[in-house]
């Protein structure tokens, strides 16, 4: 398998520059510092062609930021982005744009990502028209084809987004992304807002489209059940770092990192009846003020002295199974 998209040592910080008053206060000797949110800390991820990667983690772990960097919406503070082995930023303008079109994003809130004043046919048809995509015929037929492909009746083409239900809007978001013939879809919580019965329909659509268009997915979700069902490989993030990655079955059977284990233990399932929860204590620390060493150390049941000082190395512990935990050095 060749690497389709490779993210190398990505770090992303968000900061708000100091305003004039704060700068003057600092000159006068006040202790004013810029607040920096460390969203991603040296994250590397390789997405192979045809693969479905499930990216899971809790709020604030940086999964959406990583997705947006993968899709080219955000630029990393440090790090490189390679498309089929070449760094995207070093490509000539036109090739860079073509590479960018090959990666499309499907958002969680289809209502916020669809222009409320445009008709569905315009929403889906605009991008291929602007970018001169080869659609093999006229635009109307192409839009109808796409709508049928995602399970929408083409007779709805003149409607506005507010005239659709949540599940149908999700389908419009998908059709819009597919219109420029992408190879990689970054889906950021694409089914999170949908009811269970509708979620199943949209997940089935994702799987069908993957087979039809030979798509690669970076599927971001906080729902481990969805991730398990869909992905070939799962990546678990915690507070800006990848803590563990493994083929799906391996990860769900032999979770290595204490955070992954805690996460798997606490996902409610139909099978855990009247079960007494023994939750991990504490809350997710703020990405502004991160704990030193391993980010999970304040909540981890196995914390050692070393965890508070040293960042654990991300090492391969079994074929394809990588984890960042000091416990793996013990034996």
């Amino acid at each position, binding site marked *: 398998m060749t690497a389709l998209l490779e993210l190398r040592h990505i770090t992303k910080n968000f900061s708000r520059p100091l305003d004039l008053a704060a700068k003057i206060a600092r000159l006068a000797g006040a202790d004013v510092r810029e607040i920096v949110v460390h969203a991603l800390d040296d994250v590397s991820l390789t997405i192979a062609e045809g693969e479905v990667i499930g990216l899971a983690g809790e709020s604030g772990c940086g999964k959406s930021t990583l997705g947006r960097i993968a899709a080219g919406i955000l630029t990393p503070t440090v790090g490189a982005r390679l498309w089929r082995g070449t760094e995207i930023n070093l490509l000539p303008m036109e090739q860079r744009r073509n590479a960018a079109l090959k990666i499309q994003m499907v958002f969680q809130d289809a209502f916020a990502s669809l222009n409320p004043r445009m008709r569905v046919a315009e929403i889906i048809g605009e991008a291929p028209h602007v970018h001169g995509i080869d659609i093999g015929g006229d635009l109307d037929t192409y839009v109808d084809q796409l709508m049928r492909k995602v399970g929408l009746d083409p007779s709805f083409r003149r409607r506005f987004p507010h005239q659709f239900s949540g599940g149908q809007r999700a389908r419009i978001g998908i059709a819009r992304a597919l219109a420029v013939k992408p190879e990689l879809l970054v889906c950021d919580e694409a089914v999170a807002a949908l009811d269970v019965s509708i979620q*199943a329909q949209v997940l089935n659509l994702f799987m069908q489209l993957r087979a039809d268009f030979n798509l690669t997915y970076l599927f971001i979700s*906080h729902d481990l059940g969805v991730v398990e*069902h869909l992905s070939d490989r799962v990546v678990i993030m915690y507070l800006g770092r990848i803590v563990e990655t493994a083929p799906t079955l391996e990860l769900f059977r032999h979770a290595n990192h204490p955070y992954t284990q805690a996460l798997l233990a606490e996902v409610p399932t139909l099978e855990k009846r009247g079960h007494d929860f023994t939750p991990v204590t504490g809350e997710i620390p703020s990405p502004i003020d991160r704990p030193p060493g391993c980010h999970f150390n304040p909540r981890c049941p196995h914390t050692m002295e070393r965890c508070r000082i040293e960042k654990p190395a991300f090492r391969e512990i079994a074929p394809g199974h990588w984890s960042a935990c000091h416990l793996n050095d013990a034996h």
Partner: protein
Amino acid sequence: MTVLVVENLKTSFFTKAGVVKAVDNVSFSVGAGKVLGLVGESGSGKTVTAFSIMGLVDPPGRIVGGRVLLEGHNLLDCDDEAMRRLRGDRIAMIFQDPMMTLNPVLRIDTQMKETLRAHRAVSREKAHDLSRNALGRVGISSPDERLKAYPHQLSGGMRQRVAIAIALLNNPRVIIADEPTTALDVTIQAQIIFEVQKLARETGTAMVWITHDLSVIAGLADNVCVMYAGRIVESGPTADLLDHPMHPYTAGLIASIPSRNPRGKPLAQIPGMTPSLLRLKPGCAFRDRCARADAACGVAPDITHPTTARTLRCFHPITATAETQ
């Protein structure tokens, strides 16, 4: 002992476009220290049921029938003043978004003491102690610092704990929780469910836990009611109902959960979508999406009792023998 009984509750919204029967003949009861799970998708009437019990339905909505008995006393007969005395005292509510409960410009201690002193004559010192204890009970560490904080200084999980602590302050007989953990992360959700489970057992408070997530219910509730288009289509003890769903809708919901399906295979799905309550045809509301529907379903099915503990609204239930085929 049964604390809350809801009988044939009907709440309708009289809109310009027509009458919406958001809650249609809903009946259930909850015992002391028990947790009842009320499950359904968006628009199924779960929240309107909760609001009807609490007397919070605003025009154009109106409760048009039924009874809500809190320890034998019908809440629907209460005037506004009597309801105000009961709310926050005998019956409390936890909302999905804790910022609906918390006042953003008041400190936590002010809000907690206010809740206490609105219902009983307690000294400031006593109110402070009670508030601190309540925070301790929901697993908040260093309660003294938290009491002095404003809501925006707390994380989402912490705010929801404070909202739960406020609901617990006056030791209510019933707490109605409307999707209280839906907006929270898995680890935080587990912590809160853990606390709630413990509290219900210890204090004997009856809980009505509203959610769209069957998996949460599986771990928490003693009994489950499944709502669809304003009606309870099926109810029963949690384990029995989840293992042997009889209504095709319940069975469809359970089957469409990703972890119940072989990995990578298409998910079992319920076709179509939830009907608009405004244009609800007579008969069973689920029949357009149901594989078992036939001409008989043109009439709304009445409640039947397949076993003593269960209720069902369906002419063609899934029986144990049909399931194994």
